[in-house]
């Protein structure tokens, strides 16, 4: 048996620790501290809530598995996240088995809120360790907690941890070693939790706090001072707007260099293969289908990572809920809550994490509307199409001191945002219910972002994106290559070979539908893979116009071809189409999983198709009337 198998066997039989706590208690930081890179992210069976599991060994060498459960305020679940937490600790999720040990993480500066959950979970009767996290912050504020006394009061092991500090997890590891070997216990039924009222639980919390803490009421003055500025009715929105502007600037300017490097690298590999392989079907598949196709998508990795770099930092330091607070009124105008801001912001990188982030919204209808409008945010996959068409048709000149091309791009982004607001308003109205939506969102204390957590978070995003490139997009590109390569052109052909291929026939059939909005068969061919993954449309256009380059080189040589073969009206119509373009297949499948109903995926594709067609129709005919 090899070392790897030995490790795998040890891991499979290791006791399972469930890491549990309120949102913002530092639980995930502790999870990262314990497991480092030995963690895997998957989804819970039946729902797309992230299931993070990792493994580690204690100093004495005992192996453990650890499950990072979604944050919860109470086991009387109000969100899908909390329902998962409740079901796992209650042993109701058959696939997960009930945990052997519960490690409950609490924010030492916020025991009044956190201890209630601890008392609730204690009623399940499972072996438990309490991690008094952020003890460093508590000490700095002069809050004294008698850990030994707290352990006596709660009848459980209590350890102090500082999850954001190297070695800050040592206390927990020692406690785990003392507990070894772990004897499995069957949890009490969940009904045991509801046996005591919230008021009685709170009375118990107050009694314990009075007995074990000193200066407990010292509050976080710094956070209040920052909030006085950040939540100020005038300064707050200005800070938010400046921040958003800087983020988008960074996404486009910082990403330029790594994007160039990726496309140059991809091109290099393509050329290397072209020169060393004999011409034929295999070379065509490798160079044009796989390398060209995947390369045109891979190039967005820097932009996605830069956007997530900012989102993760703002999230970690505690700003994002403040942004949601500031925008709550505005979003309330169309019937959404400020909470929808975070999923919608993520959707600018890609709608998939956006749709998944919507699960922090408690109200099911709110959540559904947020999911349905998330793909209207201009995701980075639309950029190559925008960039290509703008470069080909919009002159490089300045209007009121700003670049006209930039202005058009900005307008396209805003068209997406405004239409999303319109759709949200319409959906809220048409669903009829006047029930008021709750906000109920914690504004956690500010703290410095943790670089280790940031790095792990970015790595996860990169992995998810690369998986998508390696599976969905790779498959599509190969399929597209095959459809547009076979059957070959007949003898004496007057059109490019693709005209006679399966893709060409499909394009010509679709032309009947799309001619009224100004799309010829060439565009129709590109639309098909573009529906599966928008960014592929550029590569597809290159294939249609028989250009075999990849990346930047393709864009520069495609620009004059498009400028001479399309009318301006067609170009504008295509831009309008891509503001709404029916969602990519990966997003639709995520929507189905998140909502648990395929109906919503079809609804989304349907309404976006209708909007795209209508917008293009209007754009095309207005442009034609004006002489474009």
């Amino acid at each position, binding site marked *: 048996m090899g070392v790897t198998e030995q490790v795998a066997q040890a891991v499979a039989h290791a006791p399972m620790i469930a890491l549990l706590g309120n949102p913002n208690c530092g639980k995930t930081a502790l999870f990262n501290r314990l497991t480092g890179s030995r963690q895997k992210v998957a989804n819970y069976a039946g729902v797309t809530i992230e299931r993070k599991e990792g493994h580690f060994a204690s100093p004495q060498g005992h192996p453990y598995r650890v499950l990072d459960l979604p944050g919860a305020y109470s086991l009387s679940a109000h969100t899908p996240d909390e329902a998962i937490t409740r079901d796992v600790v209650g042993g109701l999720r058959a696939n997960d088995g009930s945990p052997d040990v519960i490690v409950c993480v609490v924010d030492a*500066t916020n025991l009044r809120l956190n201890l209630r959950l601890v008392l609730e979970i204690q009623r399940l009767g499972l072996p438990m360790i309490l991690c008094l996290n952020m003890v460093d912050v508590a000490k700095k504020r002069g809050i004294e907690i008698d850990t030994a006394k707290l352990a006596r009061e709660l009848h459980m092991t209590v350890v102090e941890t500082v999850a954001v500090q190297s070695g800050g997890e040592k206390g927990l590891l020692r406690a785990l070693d003392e507990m070894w070997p772990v004897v499995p216990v069957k949890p009490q039924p969940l009904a045991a939790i509801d046996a005591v009222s*919230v008021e009685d639980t*709170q009375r118990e919390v107050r009694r314990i706090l009075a007995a074990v803490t000193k200066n407990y009421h010292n509050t976080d003055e710094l956070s209040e001072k920052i909030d006085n500025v950040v939540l100020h009715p005038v300064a707050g929105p200005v800070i938010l707007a400046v921040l958003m502007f800087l983020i988008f600037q960074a996404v486009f300017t910082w990403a330029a260099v790594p994007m160039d490097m990726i496309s140059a690298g991809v091109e290099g590999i393509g050329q290397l293969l072209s020169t060393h392989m004999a011409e034929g079907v295999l070379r065509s598949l490798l160079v044009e289908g796989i390398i060209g196709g995947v390369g045109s998508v891979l190039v967005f990795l820097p932009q996605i990572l830069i956007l997530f770099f900012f989102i993760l930092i703002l999230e970690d330091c505690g700003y994002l809920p403040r942004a949601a*607070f500031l925008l709550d*009124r505005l979003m309330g105008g169309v019937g959404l809550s400020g909470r929808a801001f975070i999923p919608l912001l993520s959707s600018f990188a890609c709608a998939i994490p956006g749709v998944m982030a919507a699960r922090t919204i408690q109200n099911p209808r709110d959540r559904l509307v947020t999911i349905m409008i998330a793909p209207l945010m201009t995701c980075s996959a639309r950029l190559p199409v925008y960039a290509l068409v703008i470069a080909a048709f919009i002159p490089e000149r300045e209007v009121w001191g700003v670049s006209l091309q930039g202005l058009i791009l900005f307008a396209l982004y805003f068209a997406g945002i405004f239409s999303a607001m319109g759709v949200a308003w319409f959906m809220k109205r048409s669903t009829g219910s006047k029930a008021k939506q709750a906000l*109920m969102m914690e*504004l956690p204390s500010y703290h410095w972002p943790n670089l280790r957590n940031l790095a792990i978070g970015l790595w996860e995003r990169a992995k998810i994106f690369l998986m998508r490139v390696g599976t969905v997009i790779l498959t599509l590109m190969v399929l597209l290559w095959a459809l547009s390569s076979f059957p070959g052109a007949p003898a004496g052909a007057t059109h490019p070979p693709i005209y006679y291929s399966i893709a060409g026939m499909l394009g010509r059939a679709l032309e009947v539908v799309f001619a009224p909005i100004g799309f010829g068969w060439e565009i129709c061919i590109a639309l098909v893979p573009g529906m599966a993954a928008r960014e592929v449309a550029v590569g597809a256009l290159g294939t249609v116009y028989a250009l075999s380059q990849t990346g930047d080189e393709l864009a520069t040589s495609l620009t004059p071809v498009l400028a001479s073969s399309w009318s301006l009206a067609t170009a504008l119509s295509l831009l309008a189409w891509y503001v709404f373009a029916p969602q990519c297949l990966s997003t639709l499948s995520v929507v189905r999983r998140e909502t648990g109903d395929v109906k919503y995926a079809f609804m989304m594709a349907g309404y976006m198709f209708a909007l795209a067609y209508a917008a293009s129709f209007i754009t095309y005919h207005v442009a034609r009337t004006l002489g474009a």
Partner: protein
Amino acid sequence: MTLAPSLINLDALAAGKSGTVVHVAPASGEGADSADLARRLMELGFVPGEKIRMLKRGMPGGEPLAIKVGNATFALRRYEAALVSVQPE
């Protein structure tokens, strides 16, 4: 004998003012949603006897509200806050 200031709903508390939670109750005539909301407010710490303070009120319309309860701060909308009765200081 001094008259204690009368109870008000939390959504009426001015920014910067403190008070003590007296009771949390679902809005009369509202359904299970409202009862659920009242329970969740208690789970977040809006329990009778707890000290609270109105930190900030959003603009325009004085909504949402940032309210400190214990050492935690929560953002609520007015109608949620209206379920909480407080004794202002």
